[in-house]
């Protein structure tokens, strides 16, 4: 009989290289996990997939009322509703992705303790499913653009880059938090709070120009600041802020790499402590 491969199982401690071959072997499972999460997200709801567009839409209306009408926050050019939506779409994706992925290992305890596959697929799968939601909400945005007769600019070509940055940032944070959540359930309580704070330190409901000059550097440290500015630049032609955007891309990538490494280091203990 042909022995197709030989595998040695031994104690694993400390830092581990990332097993890309294995991830490739199991790639279909990642697709299945994304598909599962998409399928079950809106099961047994009345509105189904509509929720994917209703959430940013309703948030847009409320934020427009509070910040634009009541607090007189102005956009940096386009109608405030478009401005708010273009920021809320990536922010909603990011915040939901961080909360779902950080709880994903706990929510899938059974999988972790009873079957083997690259554990990294669990948080990544949760994020993948949310990309589908983001697509829906961008679809609605296209309709809003037509309704407000706001022109498309060539900057739209940048959109995939900033989507990628959002995914990398969410995945990096999600991987670290989900791994920590296995040992410390504190994460479960801290995340909703942190995500809520994040909305205010990211220029989602106000343009970055509202911030004093010396805060601009701090802004660069927030990976989502560049993503939101980038989304607005790509979708609405809002002024770009290349330094913030560039930093954001770099920090997102670093976060993702850090997430991979930390997750890898902690994953072999998951089944024992979860």
């Amino acid at each position: 009989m042909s022995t197709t491969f030989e595998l040695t199982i031994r104690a694993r401690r400390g830092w581990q290289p990332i097993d890309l071959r294995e991830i490739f072997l199991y790639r279909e499972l990642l697709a299945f996990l994304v598909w599962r999460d998409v399928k079950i997200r809106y099961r047994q709801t009345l509105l189904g997939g509509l929720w994917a567009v209703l959430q940013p839409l309703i948030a847009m209306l409320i934020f427009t009322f509070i910040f634009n009408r009541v607090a007189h926050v102005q956009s940096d050019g386009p109608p405030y509703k478009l401005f708010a939506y273009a920021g809320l779409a990536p922010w909603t994706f990011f915040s939901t992705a961080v909360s779902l992925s950080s709880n994903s290992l706990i929510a899938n305890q059974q999988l972790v303790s009873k079957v083997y596959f690259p554990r990294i697929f669990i948080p990544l799968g949760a994020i993948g499913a949310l990309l589908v939601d983001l697509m829906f909400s961008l679809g609605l945005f296209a309709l809003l653009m037509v309704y407000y007769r706001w022109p498309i600019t060539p900057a739209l070509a940048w959109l995939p880059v900033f989507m990628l940055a959002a995914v990398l940032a969410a995945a990096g944070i999600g991987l670290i938090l989900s791994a920590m959540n296995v040992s410390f359930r504190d994460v479960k309580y801290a995340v909703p709070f942190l995500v809520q704070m994040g909305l205010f330190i990211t220029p989602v409901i106000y343009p970055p120009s509202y911030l004093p000059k010396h805060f601009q550097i701090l802004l660069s440290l927030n990976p989502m600041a560049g993503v939101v500015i980038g989304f607005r630049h790509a979708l609405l032609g809002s002024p770009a802020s290349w330094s913030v955007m560039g930093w954001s891309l770099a920090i997102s990538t670093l976060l993702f790499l850090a997430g991979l490494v930390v997750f890898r280091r902690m994953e072999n203990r998951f089944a024992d402590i979860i």
Partner: protein
Amino acid sequence: MKPMLEIRNVSKQYQLRQHATRTENLRELVERAAQAPFRRLMRQPEKEIVKEKPCVFWALEDVSFNIAHGDVIGIIGRNGAGKSTLLKILSRITSPTKGTVTVRGRLASLLEVGTGFHPELTGRENIFLNGAILGMRKAEITRHFDEIVAFAEVEKFLDTPVKHYSSGMYVRLAFAVAAHLDPEILVVDEVLAVGDLTFQKKCLGKMGEVSRGGRTVLFVSHNMAAIENLCTRGIVLNQGKLLFDGSSKAAIQYYLNSLSAQSGTGHVVDLAGVGDRRTLAGPLLKKMEFLTEDEQPLAEGLTIGSRLKIKVQFELPEATDKFNVGLGFNNNYGQRIFTAHTIFEPSRWDSEPVGTTVLACEIPSFTVMPGEYTVKIWLELKGREVDAIEDAAKIRVLESDFYGTGRVPWNGTMVLKHHWFLEPTDTRPHQSIEIGSEEYQPRIG
């Protein structure tokens, strides 16, 4: 040919209470992490962390054996012997603390039926999802799809969410997916404990098919009959150590002997130090006393169908009537043949005892086949099993003339009083012909 699996000096250590201490010490951990760079800068050694040393527990200790191609191995041992830990290491769910395992070939494990099933998804969707989780390619699942559905007998409900399935259907579907995995090495934990008897047989049949097909199988079960049927080789684990490796028959014998060696004998059994105890509230169960006809102490054993009275002495920490006691009788294949439980008592006592309490259970006629039986005893307080002892005692049932015919029953697991009659038929329509009745007159000629 090299062995399919080489297990070499494998040990696995768990730290008890790890979870509790870790959670308490998040703050400590953050402090320590924050100080680390400065400590290094100042060349200060990390301060000895003064805390209660976590209790270390070896789930497996220095276990080594090889598995050749086509071996079908049964792993036997009582709860906590390390069987599941071994399977978890082989399936890479957890890594060993020491030692290595070399796997040559594609290994699939089934530690639980229906892992990853999602209640909201339909049967069809779950087949694909579960298949993928167990390591099948989409193309493979598609190829086996019809077989899986036929095996599980769920054709009509394929597009119904599995949350509406009966538990039997659910288990059938889950096992069907796993049964059609096509690995070279199959690792199966006690998954047959679920599902109805017909299906259990079907699963065993399927596993037999797999093993006869030259596949290498590792199988954990408490069902000795299944082990004897399916396996060619048996391994006995106890407290993480490999005690026996040999033919499955010999392994079962070894295991059963070691079990009964730990069970209490004699007519009074002091429950401290016998059997396999699991307790949440301390050793509340104290003593068992076995009596037979005329309150005679049970010495050698009781004859088939005679009276069995068991007195159980235990401590109740508070005055309550919300306690229950159960007695489980297992045959020498580890199969439960009878459970006696205080919830089945129609006229419950209405006092609320406290402290040392003695309950007596009387079985007017213990109608089981001759042989040895082990007794599990457990105490429940407010619906929770707080103290339980597997194999607490063993009793021997002796042959006797139960039917009063001079013939000793020779087959089956139990004896029941029964009678035979000739029923009226066309050729003898009018006569009542009960055997032994006075109306029965044999015709001559």
